[in-house]
């Protein structure tokens, strides 16, 4: 390349870097701050909406409730923001004429009275510990760990094609005495029938 063309290439690169810097200074800072909240929470919001909706497609044994008016309880382990979001969206809503309560649980805390337990995070050792402590009882276990179903979860969230999808283990549901509606299974990304 000639020296002249070389210099032109440098100039073009310069223009590009300047543009990038300009963009960052003028536009990106405020945009990014706003988008940070949006992008980070969208996945959480969609999952929270799913958790609430799962209650409507799951049938718990009568023994899971103290009486006909007892609320449905969602327990959340390891994601206080998710619990806050859930509390916000279930406020004033009911499932099968039962109020919905959200409970934040610490790891190691017994999920007494919980109907749907969401274990946040990808750390499979931790998820395994929490799931183990929760079994066997009529709890709909939901995880978001890569091998959630193998760890004994009933429903496991995963990102497929940039969307929140979920896999279902029918065996785990049976084991926990939960019936899942066929409607839920048709939307599932994958339904696992045999032993995991």
């Amino acid at each position, binding site marked *: 390349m000639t020296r002249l063309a070389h210099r032109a290439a440098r100039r*073009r690169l310069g223009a590009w870097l300047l543009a990038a810097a*300009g963009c960052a200074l003028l536009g990106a800072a405020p945009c990014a701050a706003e988008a940070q909240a949006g*992008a980070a929470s*969208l996945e959480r919001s969609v999952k929270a909406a799913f958790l609430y909706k799962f209650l409507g497609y799951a049938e718990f044994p009568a023994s899971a409730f103290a009486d006909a008016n007892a609320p449905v309880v969602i327990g959340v382990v390891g994601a206080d923001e998710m619990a806050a979001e859930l509390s916000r969206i279930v406020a004033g809503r009911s499932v099968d004429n039962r109020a919905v309560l959200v409970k934040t649980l610490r790891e190691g805390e017994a999920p007494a009275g919980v109907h749907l337990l969401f274990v946040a995070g990808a750390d499979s050792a931790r998820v395994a510990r929490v799931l183990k402590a929760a079994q066997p009882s009529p709890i709909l276990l939901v995880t978001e760990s890569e091998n959630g179903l193998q760890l004994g979860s009933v429903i496991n969230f995963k990102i497929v094609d940039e969307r929140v999808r979920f896999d279902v283990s029918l065996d785990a549901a049976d084991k926990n005495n939960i019936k899942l509606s066929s409607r839920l299974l048709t939307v599932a990304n994958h339904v696992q029938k045999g032993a995991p």
Partner: protein
Amino acid sequence: MHRPPFPFLLAAALCRAAAAAQQPDPSLVDFSLEQLSEIVVTSVSRQETRLADAPASIYLISGAEIRRSGATTLPEALRLAPNLQVARSDTRTYAITARGFSSTLENKLLVLIDGRSVYSPLFSGVFWDMQDVVMDDIERIEVISGPGATIWGANAVNGVINIITRAAKDSQGGLLSLGAGEQSRNGSARYGGTLAGGHYRVYAMADQYGDTFSEAGQRQDTGWHRSQAGFRADWDASQEQAVTLSGDSYQGMLGQVRGPDIRIGGANLVGRYTRKLDNDADLRLQAYLDHTERDQPNTGAQRLDTLDLEAQQGLRLGDHQLEWGGGYRHTRDRVQNGPLLRFTPAERILRWSNVFAQDELALRPGLRLTAGLKLEHNIYTGVETLPSLRLAWSPDSSRLVWGAAARTVRAPSRIDRDLYLANPAPSAGAPAYLIAGGPDFESETARVFELGYRSQPAAALSYSATLFYSQYDKLRTLEALPDGAVFSNMGEGRAYGIETWARWQPARNWRLSAGAVWQDIDTHLKPGSLDASGSAGLATNDPHCYWSLRSAHDLGAHVQADFGLRYVGSLPQPAVPAYYELDARLAWQLWRNMELALVGQNLLHRSHAEFGSAGTRQVFDRALSLQLAVRL
């Protein structure tokens, strides 16, 4: 020469649009299960997290990015990596490289498809016109620019491309995909189901591409068609171990400008076993068989059979994370010599064996030192030593500063040693041959130093910058001797530059990415060299600068709009003018399981050239195509 600062105008316009794109939250609880499943949620962070720790210049092309680009072939999909130079020479031939040394016989890049190496030991490069993958089944492509020899071995000099397909359980159900344009037709069908406690998918695909024209307006018979079928099955029911078995079989006819069509074919079978051991240890075993055939009338025919075995173990010992392993590859290369191009011996057994160990040591919180060494043996030069040293410091979870030093080699290939290209017009006094392999040809070597910084200052913004400096020695030259020209190692050189890219999500439904590389590749001859590579078409040809800007926009739940603008600086020798081009894709989700897309390529100009000598080089036209995808 003065160009308007186009990037600036574009960036400014995009920045302004970003503010307008913010939308209030609809109440997600009122969405149906199906609607919730269709909301695009991926943030910049997720794409980057897995590799955010790697102390290397690594870019990840996600499967979704590939689908949204409208690319129907691997080389076109690789244009999405800001750290790769992709130049199309004809309808099926590409010069693809990182950090310079671009040539259609590029030989310093390693390419793997699901762990199977697809580089040809004939010339240490990749026949891009023989590689197909169903685009929808690609999970991601990892593009590492810079040396990767300590893990991947000789030939990973300037980069590694790792094409990874989805697990069978992530490609369940049916998928029918059809595409048609003025120039091209393609179709693929895939079905995934369960099998004996695991999952499988089977697929078949066919592609066809028409002839193009040279710059001088002559029709060039380089159109092609290929068909391929294959499968993948995974058994990973238990958490402790997993087995994967996959295979492909393909055939095709590729047009060539002079002479009848090239006939290609091949098949491969890959088996992989991974097992988690106690104490954070794991074991990975892999074996594959690969057969390829390429019958190029007027040139020669090659049949290649490869058996490859690899074993790798990871261990955690206190502050040390140790990876070690070894591999063996056995290849039978049979060449049916043509009238002019001959290989001596025509049939050759090629063997490579290697052992490696790499230790990652946590010096203190946030500071990691990785030291590795691979010893690789090949039949031409014996044992090659491939060491690397990397230091990474992450002051917090969103920033990483890293540095690396490595030595890599490009081991001799068949053409470097065994080639004999006879003189078509022998006469008294004229050389008996045009080009011959050098009996003393050694490995080309590189010492590479890198310094990188990656940051994610906000969830929606991340960027990366890498400075590199490489010293090359014993580069291949073609020495003109009285009997003819012989390959030798009389070149040397250095390359330096900066690779940068950024991803930014200004709004929930809008993502931007940009990348730019500025580089200076300087090679020269050692004293006494009479190099004739240039006249033999073997010289490399690199731009000083190339950049790209991409936008992915979801317009409501059912429409996607994608734009990709790229600039490639001028190439010096043979001179190719700089060019800008724009690709666009508009997709409509017609039904829950049906998507129709209109794809436009090279929209800015009627036609443009990317590689080769003025006049004879091929030009690529503005092209429109329709793509339909149906999920069953």
